[in-house]
């Protein structure tokens, strides 16, 4: 009977065997958490960060590139610093900062190296390299820092910075990891996927102390890092910097476009700042200072600021009038019966002269004819129908909608239609007499500098435009975004442009912009004076040149600088001359413009706190080692150029 117990015993052995086999099968085959990638600590996945793509200007000059720098890494458990004060002095940091950096690294891992200080330049590295040997637990790693050509194009190019927690969580495919850099705005953001390249992955073996033990499987599974694509822009960096210098001490925008292609030659948002300040490890301090600056240097005015176009809008009114047949090139109007006042000027028996002298009553009449160009007898209904027709025509010029430029946050502006006024006044409760300010670009219409430059390009092209764009080629093959090759027709025939252009040439030669004409170049231009609630009028000018073979179309907006002829027109014409001939004949004008300070006219909202001052004090309190880029006191940043 006891013999039968052997079956119990063998059964028990077999049971244990099966339990172990099942457990092993679970551990080795079913449970992914023990697979090589997810938990193996002897095989480490090393990410190779590729070089970010560089950006070139239209003449092949580098405007954005990468500078080799060194990151200082710390392994908290190895740290042995006897003389913390000396250590901090060498690195140019405060004791407080040192403590918080060590704590932050420690909370990530005590045994793995993590970033202590980023972006030490080659020179800094050389100067502290031998000293650092005295301090265990610190090591250097090669890295690269985004570098910009100078204090220019800040808002257009944007900047890169460490990815934020929010961005990390929001990304659709898990590509970025903590402490990765990502393009935050401007070109850096829009072309992030092209610029970032492809990360490489290496599997390396390490022992329990983290010492490198060679490539795993001889590098079979490794992927090479692929450098980001270079971008080719239409920016002319020399013109850009010249434009920056003209906009010194002014608030406003310049947009210059090559009409035949839609490439942007120059794009100024004044006041600007040095984008390099946001590329350093002092990002957050510098960003805060810029953010709090009352002149809002981070606001990308060319695509985000909306203004009333003022008299520049008369050009479009004339073009629509001619195309609709409500006027002919030889239609003339007088100041009689017009609710809008005008300045003293010679008679305006033609469209061209109307443009040249920017006659308000002239365009009041043109707009009135456009609106009432139908058979409806009820003036309310006729106005409503006429406005919608007009709205459609103007929309063709890209006004009241996004043009589709390769920059983030482009604003639509405002192009009122029937619905818009119905909401304000009620249906059939408004007519032409309520909206006639539109005839001269005042009232409810709002437009961005970019769109106004695009209008100049349309007139230069006699009827069409290409979507303005900063980047026209991506990568080795210089691939073009197909959207930028689409020709947008405005529906206005080329012959209807000639009288308007004639008037624009007249305006520069002997009209509202005569004081800034350039010898030897025929410029077609139109001044505008934009009324606004905050102080002096904004000075506006749009132009293109040469008239017969336009190479540049430009729009200049200077805030609170008065009439269009006083500030915007000279700036535009200087840039045109510089771009076409590479020299300036009227040195006196150039000097006067550079020195002009319209910034003092800008009415600022009272600052809530004296933040800028405070920041300066704090920074002065820190003994600065020559490690970081010298940061000028913020207040003078934009006054320098």
């Amino acid at each position: 009977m006891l013999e039968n117990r052997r079956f119990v015993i063998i059964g028990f052995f077999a049971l244990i065997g099966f339990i172990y086999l099942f457990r092993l099968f679970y551990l080795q085959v079913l449970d992914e958490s023990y697979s090589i990638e997810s938990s193996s600590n002897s095989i480490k996945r090393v990410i190779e960060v590729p070089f970010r793509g560089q950006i070139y200007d239209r003449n092949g000059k580098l405007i954005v590139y990468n500078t080799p720098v060194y990151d200082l890494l710390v392994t908290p458990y190895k740290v042995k610093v006897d003389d913390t004060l000396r250590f901090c002095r060498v690195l140019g940091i405060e004791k407080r900062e040192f403590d918080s950096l060590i704590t932050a690294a420690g909370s990530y891992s005590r045994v793995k190296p993590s970033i202590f200080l980023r972006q030490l330049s080659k020179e800094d590295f050389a100067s502290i390299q031998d000293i650092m040997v005295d301090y265990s637990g610190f090591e250097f790693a090669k890295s690269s820092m985004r570098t910009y050509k100078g204090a220019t194009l800040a808002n257009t190019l944007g900047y890169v910075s460490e990815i934020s927690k929010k961005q990390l969580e929001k990304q659709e495919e898990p590509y970025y990891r903590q402490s990765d850099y990502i393009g935050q705005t401007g070109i850096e953001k829009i072309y992030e996927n092209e610029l970032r390249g492809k990360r490489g992955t290496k599997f390396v073996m390490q022992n329990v102390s983290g010492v490198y033990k060679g490539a795993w499987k001889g590098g079979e599974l490794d992927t090479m890092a692929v450098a980001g694509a270079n971008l080719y822009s239409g920016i002319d960096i020399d013109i850009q910097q010249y434009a920056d210098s003209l906009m010194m001490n002014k608030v406003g925008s310049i947009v210059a476009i090559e009409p035949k292609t839609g490439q942007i030659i120059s794009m100024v948002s004044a006041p600007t700042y040095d984008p390099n300040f946001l590329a350093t490890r002092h990002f957050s301090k510098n960003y805060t200072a810029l953010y709090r600056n009352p002149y809002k240097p981070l606001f990308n005015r060319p695509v985000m600021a909306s203004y009333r176009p003022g008299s520049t809008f008369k050009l479009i009114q004339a073009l629509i009038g001619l195309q609709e047949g409500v006027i002919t090139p030889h239609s003339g109007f007088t100041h009689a019966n017009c609710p809008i006042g005008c300045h003293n000027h010679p008679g305006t028996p033609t469209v061209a002269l109307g443009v040249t002298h920017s006659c308000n009553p002239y365009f009041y009449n043109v707009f009135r004819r456009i609106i009432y160009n139908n058979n409806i007898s009820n003036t309310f209904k006729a106005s409503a129908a006429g406005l919608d027709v007009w709205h459609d025509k103007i929309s063709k010029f890209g006004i009241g909608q996004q043009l589709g430029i390769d920059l983030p946050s482009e604003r639509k502006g405002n192009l009122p239609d029937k619905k818009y006024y119905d909401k304000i006044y009620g249906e059939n409760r408004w007519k032409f007499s309520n909206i006639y300010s539109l005839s001269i670009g005042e009232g409810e219409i709002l437009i961005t500098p970019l769109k106004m430059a695009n209008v100049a390009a349309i007139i230069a092209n006699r009827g069409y435009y290409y979507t303005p764009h900063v980047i026209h080629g991506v990568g080795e093959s210089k691939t073009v975004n197909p959207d930028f090759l689409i020709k947008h027709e405005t529906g206005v025939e080329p012959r209807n442009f000639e009288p308007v252009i004639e008037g624009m040439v007249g305006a520069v030669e002997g009209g509202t912009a005569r004081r800034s004409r350039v010898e030897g170049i025929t410029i077609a231009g139109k001044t505008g004076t934009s009324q606004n609630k905050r102080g002096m009028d904004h000075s506006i000018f749009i132009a293109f040149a040469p008239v017969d073979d336009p190479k540049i179309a430009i729009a200049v907006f200077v805030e609170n600088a008065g009439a269009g002829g006083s500030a915007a027109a000279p700036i535009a014409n200087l840039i045109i001359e510089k771009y076409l001939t590479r020299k300036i004949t009227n040195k006196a004008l150039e000097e006067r413009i550079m020195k002009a300070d319209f910034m003092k006219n800008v009415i600022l909202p009272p600052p809530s706190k004296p933040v800028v001052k405070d920041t300066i004090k704090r920074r002065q309190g820190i003994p600065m080692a020559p490690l970081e880029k010298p940061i000028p006191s913020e207040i003078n940043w934009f006054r320098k150029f």
Partner: protein
Amino acid sequence: MEEGKPITKNVDWMVVLIYIACLGIGWVNIYAAVYNPETHSSIFDLSNNAGKQLMWIGTTFILIICILVIDYKFYETFSFIIYAIVIFLLVVVLFAGSNINGSRSWIKFGPMSLQPAQFANLAVSLAISKYLSDPAISLSRKLKDYYPILGIIALPSVLILLSNETGSMLVFASFAIILYREGMPGFIPAIGIVSAALLIISLLYNSWYIAGAIIFIAGLVIWLMPVMTRRQGGLWATILVALVMISIAFGVDFFMNNVLQKHQRGRIMVLLDPDSDPRGIGWNVIQSKIAIGSGGFTGKGFLQGTQTKFDFVPEQSTDFIFCTVGEEHGFVGTAVVVSLFILLISRLVILAERQRSRFARVYGYCVAGIFFFHFLVNVGMTIGLMPVIGIPLPFFSYGGSSLWSFSVLLFIFLKIDAQRPFTLSRG
């Protein structure tokens, strides 16, 4: 023994083949465990554990030949003398032993060190077999017949405990198998297993919940019990058992918190939740599981293991040799090893059952039980099913003493088994 017959006559070849397979696989894996990709040391290099193990294997073969040559009656006749010698060595080692890894349990002979505790299994097995070979002894009827057995086990246990080799002492638990086979009532091992299960559950859950569950089950048992059984004392027996179990549940809490030392408590808690202390006590278990788990189905390949090299897994060539098998040969490799062991011990049970003498049968069961216990605990700890107890995996782990003792243990039984046709049953 008849003249002219080879000494290998009638030896069970299946066991020998499994034994050789284990030795071979073990040796190759010891080489893999100590292999350093930077120096490419040879498997025959005597400066590393693989080369040394080869030397041990060689000497083991000499031992095996000796065992096969010696008359089979020798072991039965000299059982108690062998036991006495081992006890003597255990006493000697307490006073004159060399200190290796925190336990004074080694005797050094020049470059080699021996651990007498490893031979205690052999001595106790022989002594118990000898004692039980008396047909008058009955484990199913007379309680006093247990006392000598307890004495045989207790003496070396105390000595081994004094030399700080708790792992080797625990192996004596494996004698429960032979006692059960020879007539120990089934409820005793059942109580043991239930208690162990209760112990683990008590560690995991609140004692009050467990008490509730036990009362519920006891109630269910009483309700389902035939009325006759209930009247004949079944009611009170069930209530008594339930009360004992509840007091165990509460006792465990007290025991864990007030009796056990901190590292012992840690080892038990880590078994339940290795992540509770990943850098400290849990390290071994986690690293071992990662190493085995990262092997996947077919493994990373011979000498391609990375967790077991580069020092992530401690004691790779000795106690944690199974990790190397798991990492480099995957589930295929581990399944082969597990199967070899189950096959070996099952075969030993079958061989034991066909013995005519009670001495031989008891001894065979002892051998099977000892191998089973080592397998159970060693493999169990590498896959996180058992607490980390430092005992070797027979034939696989590096180490001369263990290889010698396991081989001697096994081949004495094979020798006795080979003589089976010529022995008369006395039992």
